[in-house]
């Protein structure tokens, strides 16, 4: 459970940082406003949808961190045989990274009011993300035909479970991205869809980050990292 | 007024109930009277807090209930008072936690001279195993469990052949000798619980858990399962008998070793 605790410590740090700016030590009973005052809004200038997505990503982060926690705890038991990492996984990683880059580009072009370029960026993002999912399915097929079936070993079970969960999140993102692309085709001004594009890009970067962590986990680098941490501690 | 009276009644009746209750723990039969003492300390502290808070609320309702013309006092906070209350609470908490951790340390530190007794749970009965003449238990594996070998003892481990197996019968242990209970399960979670010994621990399939105690009283005690283990959970009872040293030896002589058990099992199948 130490992985999730580290994750939560990070969240706690963000919350503490935010709370530190909220005057939690003020004495509200001494601060009544008078007639003629126009009190300010005490909220953030970041768009609400972005904050909403940020909170949602924290939840998704917790979800994957818990899977990783469970992975490490289960890995400590005797019957664990690591699953090989097919070469195709590298290709998929690159495809997903391309997807992320394409959306970032779409966002930058949208900010510059280049609507055609933005549309192209969105389309590339959409296509590469679908490519990633198809690629993942091929990885699954390759592993299954090599005899690494789901229930044979916990390492296999975790691999299919966690990559599946990640794929579902990409799939959910595709719905939003599809809608955004559709809107982009019907909007005259990039301004109308800028926020949606930004949100998609943000989500994509996050899912790429999650994927990189998962990839490191499956490739075994994460274990080496944990070992190094352990040695540093002892 | 009724509210005040009933609140006072709740506080007083709770204390009286505690003092007069016929439902109190079973007479202790192990060395864990430390645990009982910690519970008593906790009862004193928490009982005092509970009575004080409820009576204070009753007094407030009595003294400050609404009457025409009343106005509440205006006091947003009182740092000094809050500080003192927090300090006193902290002291109370430490007074409970410190003995608790002290006794827990004893609870998890198994004395070297403790003899091992293995308990193996299955739906819904208890099996036991004692080390044989060589003083140690052989290895075991859930995969090796068969009808003839309900504990899954490893036949190829010489250390296990002289182990004494008590399948589905009473367990005997000698009085005043510390025992380390090694707990296993072959199917689901169980929990070895003898109320008179105070100690208990879950039995988890796939691992060996343990706790230790010293029986201090001879007699027959009931083993209850304290972790839900399916529909038969309430029927999962067993018996442990604490014997004097002589009685224990007599009983021990009559028990079967693992190799004897396997032999008789085979002869039965041959017949």
């Amino acid at each position, binding site marked *: 459970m130490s992985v999730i605790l580290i994750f939560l410590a990070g969240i706690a740090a963000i919350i503490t940082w935010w709370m530190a700016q909220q005057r*939690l030590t003020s004495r509200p009973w001494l601060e009544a406003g008078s007639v003629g005052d126009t009190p300010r809004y005490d909220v953030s200038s970041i768009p609400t949808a972005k904050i909403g997505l940020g909170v949602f990503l924290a939840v998704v982060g917790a979800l994957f961190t818990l899977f990783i926690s469970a992975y490490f705890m289960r890995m400590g038991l005797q019957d664990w045989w690591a699953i090989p990492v097919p070469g195709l996984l590298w290709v998929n990683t690159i495809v997903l990274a391309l997807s992320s880059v394409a959306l970032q580009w779409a966002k930058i072009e949208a900010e510059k009011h280049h609507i055609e370029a933005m549309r192209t960026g969105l389309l590339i993002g959409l296509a590469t993300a679908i490519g990633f999912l198809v690629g993942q399915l091929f990885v699954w097929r390759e592993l299954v035909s090599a005899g690494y079936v789901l229930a044979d070993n916990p390492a296999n079970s975790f691999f299919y479970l966690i990559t599946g969960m990640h794929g579902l999140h990409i799939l959910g993102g595709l719905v939003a991205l599809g809608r955004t692309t559709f809107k982009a085709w019907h909007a005259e001004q990039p301004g109308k869809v800028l926020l949606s594009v930004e949100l998609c890009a943000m989500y994509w970067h996050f899912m790429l980050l999650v994927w990189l962590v998962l990839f490191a986990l499956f490739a075994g680098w994460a274990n080496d990292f944990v070992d190094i941490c352990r040695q540093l501690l002892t | 007024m009724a509210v005040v009276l009933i609140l006072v009644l709740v506080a007083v009746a709770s204390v009286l109930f505690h003092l007069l209750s016929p439902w109190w723990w079973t007479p202790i039969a192990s060395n864990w009277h430390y645990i009982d003492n910690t519970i008593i300390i906790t009862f004193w502290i928490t009982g005092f807090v509970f009575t004080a808070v409820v009576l204070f609320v009753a007094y407030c309702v009595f003294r*400050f209930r609404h009457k025409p013309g009343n106005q509440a006092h205006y006091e947003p906070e009182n740092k000094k008072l809050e500080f003192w209350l927090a300090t006193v609470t902290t002291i109370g908490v430490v007074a409970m936690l410190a003995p*608790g951790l002290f006794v827990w340390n004893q609870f998890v530190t198994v004395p070297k001279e403790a003899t091992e007794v293995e308990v193996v749970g299955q739906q819904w009965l208890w099996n036991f195993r004692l080390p044989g003449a060589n003083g140690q238990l052989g290895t075991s594996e*859930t995969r090796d469990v068969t009808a003839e070998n309900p504990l899954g003892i490893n036949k190829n481990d010489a250390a296990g052949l002289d182990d004494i197996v008590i399948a589905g019968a009473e367990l005997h242990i000698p009085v005043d000798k510390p025992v380390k209970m090694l707990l296993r399960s072959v199917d689901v979670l169980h929990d070895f619980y003898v*109320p008179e010994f105070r100690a208990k621990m879950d039995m988890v399939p796939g*691992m060996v858990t343990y706790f230790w105690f010293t029986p201090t009283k001879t007699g027959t005690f009931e083993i209850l399962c304290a972790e839900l283990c*399916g529909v038969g959970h*309430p029927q999962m009872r067993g018996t442990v008998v604490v014997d004097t040293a002589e009685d224990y030896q007599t009983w021990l002589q009559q028990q079967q070793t693992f190799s004897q058990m396997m032999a008789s099992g085979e002869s039965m199948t041959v017949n």
Partner: protein
Amino acid sequence: MVNIPSSIDDTVPAAEVEDVELYHPHSWWTTYVFSQDAKVIAIQYSMTALAIGLVALVLSWLMRLQLGFPGYFTFIDAERYYQFITMHGMIMVIYLLTALFLGGFGNYLIPLMLGARDMVFPYANMLSYWLYLLAVLVLVAGFFVPGGPTGAGWTLYPPQAVLSGTPGGQDWGIILMLTSLILFIIGFTMGGLNYVVTVLQGRARGMTLMRMPLTIWGIFTATVMALLAFPALFVASVMMLFDRLLGTSFFMPAIVEMGEQLQHGGGSPILFQHLFWFFGHPEVYIVALPAFGIVSDLISTHARKNIFGYRMMVWAIVIIGALSFIVWAHHMYVSGMNPNFGFFFATTTLIIAVPTAIKVYNWVLTLWRGDIHLTLPMLFALGFIVTFVNGGLTGLFLGNVVVDVPLSDTMFVVAHFHMVMGVAPIMVIFGAIYHWYPKITGRMLNEIMGRIHFWVTFLGAYLIFFPMHYLGLLGAPRRYYELGESAVNPPSAHDLNVFITLMALTVGAAQMLFLFNLIWSLRNGKEAGGNPWRATTLEWQTPTTPPPHGNWGKELPVVYRWAYDYSVPGAPEDFIPQNQPNSNRLSMENAS
């Protein structure tokens, strides 16, 4: 249209959406069924929660009948008994308490108390309710499938939860239960995002965090915790579904079940327990913190006095919320985990007692020198203090690792958690319903029925659960269909069980009176007016009661003060609403 001069440092926040088209629904369907109005969603959540709660109540009667009169009611066999306790527990904890506090009160109160028109993502909010309803239906479907619902206990510990020795383990029961939980969590996340982001971004002009009522603080903190804790239950549920349906071995070690070797091997049942309680312990506070917040407001309003030590109350809520993530393993002292963890978890658990105790002190100190109106909400608040203090103190027994050893898995535990997270929060729920019903419907609930309801519920519940501790002290284990002959079940204990059963039936009957009151008062209750309790918070200052979709008509409220200006010296009345500025005369007086 809202037209307030904005300066440069002002952003246009979510609260300040215009009186838009969305707030004028065109059909009956979008007004009452597929509504995106947080208040309608709140009522939908509450009614569904109360309906499923009624099922849980009936289940509790059935199990008490078995415990009070073992063998007398032959249709309650062991299988059914375990199905009843499982469904009762799960319904009460998740589908009633969590849903009602966050989905019900959260939805109703957050926008109103903050001066917002609605939640920030109304569409997701609506979906949240429909997913919750689907989760409830899937849960209830368990009663109608072959094998019935799961009987694994609400903790669903593997391996027994998915084996044939447990009702529903190899049938549909456990599958439906896990599916329902997964749906609930997805639905809750949609709602939870709304509650959190609305508090962050939806606050009216002048509503700083330290001017928020404690109700909002409680619900806000609980939602943040729930968003981070529920994923653990999600992970555990998905992994257990895999074990059950696809033959994996996440939680399943090698098992010989009824003489037969199963295919599983190597898994760890303790891993499930860690995941479950990583959710399960914060869950206790997910239920408790909204109750803490709401009861603070009830006490303050009905004692006509500001909540004592507001700042300390806020900090305590946040600290309790944070600490509750590092105490989960106190549910696992006798689970067989590394015993050295006991030292750490006992210490963190008992540390939580300090901020919790401070909250209790501040509630009773609010009563001190107050002007206590013994209204129904105040009565329930008093009932909460008594039951919560009782249940909280017995928590010190169970949190203190070595004391937990003899008491764990006994009726002491059952009595403890019913008192602290059953009776106490439900006292608050009732108090809150009596308090806010006039705002929701425009009418007061009947006082006489309310008083009968209070006394029977409070005293009855106390008489059920206070003596029950002593059965546990005696050693009676929990989750026993029948104890039969045993040293821990003397005849006197049997008499006590009969008494507890009779009390349980009585308390249950009183709830029928409450439900009747809810319906009866809709038409026959006294007209309430906009602010019957003369309260300061914004929900009582709406232009119309009940508030329409959009809450505030044309002008959003502007907040000038904190939520607790009761009995301010020199003020003409004993309360000053949050949206009322100081006249210059008064502010001079305050300054001097």
